C-alpha cells in the first residue's frame, strides 16, 4: 500500500513537471518576451539588461529550473496588461472562487447522491422516471444557459436574488468571505446552482447506474436471502459499494467544477480567478494564463491524490496490497 501511495505521488509530481513545462513554454515562446515586458520602443541595451536579469541567455533547462524555483516561491512574474504581480492578483481573487466551488460541490454531491439513490431504488416509479428524463435535458443544457435562465427568472422577473457580484464581504483571518453576510449568501445562491447543476446530474446518473449494478450482484441477493431489512440492504451494503467507484468520478468532477467556474464567474461577474483567466486569454496575458494553469494543475494533482487515499480508506481490499482491484 505504501508503495502504491508513493507511486501515485511520483505520478503526480510528473504531471506537475509537465504542466510546469507547458507553462514555462508559454512564457518563453508566446510572443516576444522582450517586447512583452519592455514594450516596443526598447533599445538594444534595454534588451541586453533584461536578458541578463531574466537569464534568457542561459540554456533552456536552466531557465526552466529557475522558472520552477520561482513558481515554488510564489513568484509568477508581472501581468503584461497592468504590471501588477500575478501572485497578488490571484491571491486577491482566490477566496471567491474557492467559496463558490465548495458551495456548489456540496450542493452537487448531496443532492446528486440523494437523487441517484432514490431513482435507483424506485426504478420504475413515476417521480424517478420524471427526474431521469429531466436530467437528460440538464445534461444538454450548457452551463451558461442555465445561468442566464436563472438570472432571467430570479433576478429580472422575480427580482429576489442579485444577478451579479459577491455581495458584501467581510475579512476573517485574512480571508475575504461572502458567506458571513446576508447579501453575500444571497449572491452565492444562483452561481452555486448554475455551477453545481450539471455536476449534480452527472453524480445522480452515475450513482443511479452504479447502484443498479450493485443491486444486481450476488451479495445483495444473498443479503436478501439472509432476511436483512430493505434499509440495511440499500444503505448498509448497496450504497457503500456504490460510492466506491463514484468517488473517483467525484474527484474528477471537482476538477470540472474549478474549470466550469470560469463560465459561471463570467455569467455572474463573480470576482474570482476564472474571470481573471478568461480576460487573460482574451488579451493573451501570458503570465496569468501560465499561473492559472500551474495553480489548477497542482489542484488537480492534489485532488487525485486525495481520491486515491480515500479509496484506500474505504476499500479494505486495497489496504493490504495496493496493486490489485483498481
Amino acid at each position, binding site marked *: 500500500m505504501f508503495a502504491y501511495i508513493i507511486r501515485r505521488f511520483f505520478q503526480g509530481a510528473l504531471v506537475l513537471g509537465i504542466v510546469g513545462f507547458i507553462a514555462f513554454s508559454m512564457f518563453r515562446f508566446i510572443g516576444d518576451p522582450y517586447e512583452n515586458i519592455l514594450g516596443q520602443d526598447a533599445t538594444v541595451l534595454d534588451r541586453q539588461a533584461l536578458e541578463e536579469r531574466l537569464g534568457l541567455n542561459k540554456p533552456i533547462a536552466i531557465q526552466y529550473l529557475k522558472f520552477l524555483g520561482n513558481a515554488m516561491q510564489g513568484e509568477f512574474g508581472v501581468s503584461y496588461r497592468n504590471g501588477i504581480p500575478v501572485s497578488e492578483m490571484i491571491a486577491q481573487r482566490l477566496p471567491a472562487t474557492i467559496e463558490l466551488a465548495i458551495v456548489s460541490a456540496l450542493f452537487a454531491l448531496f443532492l446528486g447522491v440523494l437523487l441517484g439513490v432514490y431513482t435507483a431504488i424506485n426504478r420504475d416509479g413515476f417521480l424517478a422516471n420524471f427526474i431521469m428524463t429531466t436530467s437528460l435535458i440538464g445534461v444538454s443544457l450548457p452551463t451558461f444557459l442555465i445561468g442566464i435562465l436563472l438570472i432571467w427568472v430570479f433576478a429580472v422577473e422575480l427580482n429576489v436574488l442579485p444577478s451579479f457580484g459577491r455581495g458584501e464581504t467581510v475579512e476573517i483571518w485574512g480571508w475575504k468571505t461572502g458567506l458571513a453576510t446576508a447579501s453575500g449568501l444571497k449572491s452565492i445562491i444562483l452561481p452555486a446552482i448554475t455551477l453545481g447543476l450539471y455536476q449534480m446530474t452527472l453524480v445522480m446518473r452515475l450513482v443511479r447506474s452504479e447502484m443498479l449494478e450493485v443491486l444486481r450482484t450476488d*451479495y445483495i441477493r444473498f443479503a436478501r436471502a*439472509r432476511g436483512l*431489512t430493505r434499509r440495511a440492504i440499500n444503505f448498509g*451494503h448497496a450504497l457503500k*459499494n456504490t460510492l466506491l467507484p463514484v468517488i473517483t468520478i467525484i474527484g474528477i468532477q471537482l476538477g470540472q467544477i474549478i474549470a466550469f467556474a470560469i463560465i459561471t464567474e463570467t455569467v455572474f461577474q463573480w470576482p474570482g480567478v476564472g474571470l481573471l483567466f478568461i480576460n487573460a486569454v482574451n488579451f493573451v496575458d501570458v503570465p496569468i494564463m501560465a499561473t492559472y494553469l500551474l495553480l489548477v494543475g497542482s489542484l488537480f494533482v492534489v485532488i487525485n491524490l486525495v481520491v486515491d487515499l480515500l479509496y484506500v480508506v*474505504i476499500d*479494505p481490499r486495497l489496504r493490504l496490497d495496493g496493486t490489485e482491484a483498481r
Partner: protein
Amino acid sequence: MTTNALLEVNNLTVEIPTRRGTLIPVNEVSFNIDRGEIVGVVGESGAGKSITGSAIIGLLDPPARIAGGSVTLQGKLISDMNENQLRDIRGKRIGTVFQDPLTSLDPLMSIGNQLSETAMAHLNIGRDQAREKALQALIDVGIPAAESRLDAYPHEFSGGMRQRVVIALALIGDPELIIADEPTTALDVSVQAQVLMLLKRLCKERNTGVMLITHDMGVIAETTDRVVVLYAGRVAEIGDTRQVLTAAIHPYTQGLVGATPNPTNLANSQERLNQIPGTMPGLLSMPAGCPFHPRCSEVMEVCKTTLPTLSQRENSTIACHLGAEAKT
C-alpha cells in the same frame, strides 16, 4: 408423503413472460423435505433446479414469478407471502447458501459484522451478544483462529473458507431448512468434500433439513438421503438416494447415473462413460408428450404424444410410461 413434512412443495410452477412467449422453467414440481433430511435436487443446467430454490424463498428475479402451486413450511403457506413477511422466513427459518462464495459476501464489510448483522436481524439480541454469536458460528464451521478472523474482510479468506463463512451466515439464525444451491461447484476439488461433510454434519447435529441443489451425482451419492431428479422443469423421478443410484427406473436417471464415473471400478474400466445423447430442449421448443422422449433410448409411441404422470413404483415416484402399463 407425510403431511407433517418440514417443507412441502406442491405443483410449483414458475413463469417468465418474455417477448417471444411465456417460459415455464419450473412446471408443476412437487416434493417434500423432512426435518434433518438432506434432499438432493439434481438435473442438467437449465432443468429448473436453482429457480425452484429461488421460488421457495421468494427471491425470483422479476419478471419471473410463481404462477401456480404452493410452498408450505411446517404447514404454513409461504408462497403467497409479501416481502415483509418473507423477511422473517429468510435467514431465520430458511437459510441459503449460494454457489459462488467469492461473490456472495459484501466485499466492504468485515465478516464479523455481516454475521452479527444477520444475527441481530433475527434473534432480538444486542451488539455484544451478536458478536459472540458470530464468533461461535465461525468456530462451528471450523474457521481456524476464529476470534482473530472476525474483523477480516472476505478477500482475506480462501474460497473454501469463504464458503464456510457463507454456511455460518446461513446457519446463524438457526433455520429449520437450508437451501444450498451448488455450494461446492465453484470450489477446488480438494475442498469440495470438506465443505460438503461440514454442511452434512452441522445439519444432522441441528436436525436441519437441507435442499441440496447440484448437477453432480457424486455429491448426491455422498451427501443426500433422497433425490429429486428434474428434467426440463419437471420432476422425472423422486426416490431414496441408494435406490436411485443403484436401480434407477427412469431412463434419464439411468443416463445421469451412467454418466458418473464409478470410483470402485475406475482402474480396470476400459469402457467409456455412458453419455445421454443430445441436449435438453429449450424452454421455447418443448416437444409434445414426454419432454425426454427425443433423447430416450427406450422411447415408445405413447411417449411422443402423452405426458407421463408421476406414479409410485417400488421405492420411487417416477414420471415415465415405461413399465407403467404393466402395473395398471
